[in-house]
């Protein structure tokens, strides 16, 4: 597997652990990440994340359950906040997901979300 794709998977596994809000065993991680990952790939990623100190684990029965390490996230969060607080101007080095969001958009967004959900239910698939 190419390195970049591996980095993205690493991010998705980390994201899944954070989203879960409770410790997950590898089989649960596999389910939470979705897609067609192999169990061994998930195991490899979990071990790597654990080696990097980003997640911690506890023995639950025969398997380990993994959860993210909360400590020290504040340092990165502080750096991002520093960039966001650089005045009213948009920063060039940082692209935000929700740049240009207006408070008047609530009803429109609700309608769009309903349409998006409907589209996904109709089998949006992995088309472009």
């Amino acid at each position, binding site marked *: 597997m190419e390195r970049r794709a591996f980095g993205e998977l690493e*991010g998705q596994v980390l994201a899944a652990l954070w989203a879960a809000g409770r410790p997950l065993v590898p089989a649960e991680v596999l389910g939470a990440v979705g897609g067609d990952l192999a169990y061994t790939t998930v195991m490899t990623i979990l071990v790597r994340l654990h080696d990097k100190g*980003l997640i911690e684990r506890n023995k639950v029965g025969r398997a380990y359950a993994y959860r993210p390490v909360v400590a020290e996230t504040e340092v990165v969060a502080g750096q991002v906040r520093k960039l966001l607080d*650089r005045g009213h101007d948009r920063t060039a080095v940082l692209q935000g*997901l*929700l740049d*240009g969001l207006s408070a008047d958009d609530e009803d429109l967004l609700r309608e769009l979300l309903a349409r998006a959900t409907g589209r996904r239910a109709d089998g949006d698939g992995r088309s*472009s």
Partner: protein
Amino acid sequence: MNTVVFVPFGASVLLVALSRILVTRLRPSAAAWALSTAMPLVALCTVGGLLVLACPLPARVPLVAALGRWAPSAVARHSPVAPLVSALALAALTWSGCRLCREVRALVAEARTVLGASSLRRAATEVIVVDDPVPQAHALGVSVLGLGRIVVSSGLLRLLDADERAAVIAHEHAHLDQHHAVLASASRLSAALNPLLAPIRDDLGYVLERSADEAAAATTSRGALASGIAKAALATVQTARVAGGAFALHRQAVADRVAALLAEPTERTRAAWVLVAVAVVAAAAVGWALHDTERFFEAARLWSRR
């Protein structure tokens, strides 16, 4: 005076108008490419135009004239530009220079913050999760030398399902892969040099988001990305932590993006050439004006020998 020297100023206004019209009609990647080529080019052309207008004034200063070996009186007598126009152009050049310096300093400070964030021990992976209930995701820097980082809040991750998470991460990844920080920086520097171009910065900002959306939709799922963005936007609106007035034109930028994802993707790319053509015309005009100025000073050198 050769009036083509004013073409870059007209081109700036035209570029702003065209970008307004084309920004939602073109394929986002083509629009991003065209805008971030045309903006710096036109900005440099206006600087060239100002130089042409300004240079007869300092050329009258005896010391400068001695260096160029032309007669100050001859320059004064035959100067194609009125002294007042030259003085104004000189003032505009100085102002542009100051604005550029300020912008460069701000960008360097930002880049150092990004470097600081991506060299942290916590930042061993490309995706960094910060424990923050506010749903947000950001792409930091560019994916050169492994410097790019994706910062996602735990609040956003808890809000989304697996496909939406993958789509949003792919969106941020596209920002890094397509070097959007470089394009945004180039447009900021261009707008600093030439304030007439400032409105295009918002257009480019929107186009970069759309471009990342389309790239993410191509590798993950359109519907999941649309619902992921809509969910995050709704939650943000409801917790009233919206940065107001980021976009003057695209006030509904996020909603526009979701709507664009739910519609058929635009395939129009050819009209992007119009934007580049405007810049090329400006460059040709400035080239002509610079050539004329060079000829004028050659003549001034001959007069001084008489």
